[in-house]
């Protein structure tokens, strides 16, 4: 059976679900950020798969452009997210999300 868009979309769905499970179920804030990166990669796979298989034998590049923008935002998000985690670690000596309850009332 030759490869089609379904293969890539199902792979993307599996990867997204693994990332979602990790992002919801982990206690370490860095692990949550890693799982969010997995989810963003899954979305990128779906984008590139659509741009490859929408027209047969032609690669449409709009999906690639979107993937590049997602990568840009993911890099910015990782830098700011890790800076926030390090700032929280400095003040509270912990990166456990269940202990981050400063804004809870």
């Amino acid at each position: 059976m030759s490869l089609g868009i379904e293969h890539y979309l199902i792979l993307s769905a599996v990867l997204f679900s693994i990332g979602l499970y990790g992002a919801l179920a982990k206690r370490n804030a860095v692990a949550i950020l890693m799982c969010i990166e997995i989810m963003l990669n899954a979305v990128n796979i779906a984008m590139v798969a659509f741009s490859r298989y929408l027209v047969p034998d032609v690669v449409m590049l709009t999906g690639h452009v979107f993937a590049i923008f997602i990568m840009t935002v993911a890099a910015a998000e990782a830098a700011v997210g890790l800076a926030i985690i390090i700032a929280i670690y400095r003040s509270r000596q912990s990166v456990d999300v269940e202990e981050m309850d400063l804004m809870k009332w």
Partner: protein
Amino acid sequence: MTTEIAFWILALVMVGAALGVVLLRDIFRAALLLVLCFFTVAGIYITLNADFLAAVQVLIYVGAIGILLMFAIMLTRNVQRGNPFNRLNGPALLLAFLIMIIIISVVAATDWPSITAVPQQAVGVAVDEPTTGHIAEALFSKDNGFVLPFEIASVLLLAALIGAVVLVRRKDKE
């Protein structure tokens, strides 16, 4: 045929590595498996004729984000804690599983349409041709390019750079 073999190997390694990221107790090993997962995503891009994106994936994700995550882990590591699950483990597993089942059933039930010609607005390249130059065309063309989002992305990166520096600067020396 070789593309199919490559796809299946890459897909299996990718899903295994992603499961390792979620399930492993040692967060440093989880980060190394995440880097492996990023590498296999680059391989998947190559099977999709996206050569430029594969190179960008290796440069940005494996090179920059992987190293950044390892720095963050080493700066914040709690050796005795490890990488445990929180008390939402059961519901989260159920929710993720449900979403996966829904997406897969929708993908399987859809009869994917095939357009025969490239639409007016889009830039298309024949399969087996390099995409790098044409991505520049799609990004920067005057009529239907993405010049404004590109400029906004540069402002976003600058803001993220300044924000990260401000957030981790030591404030007790003032």
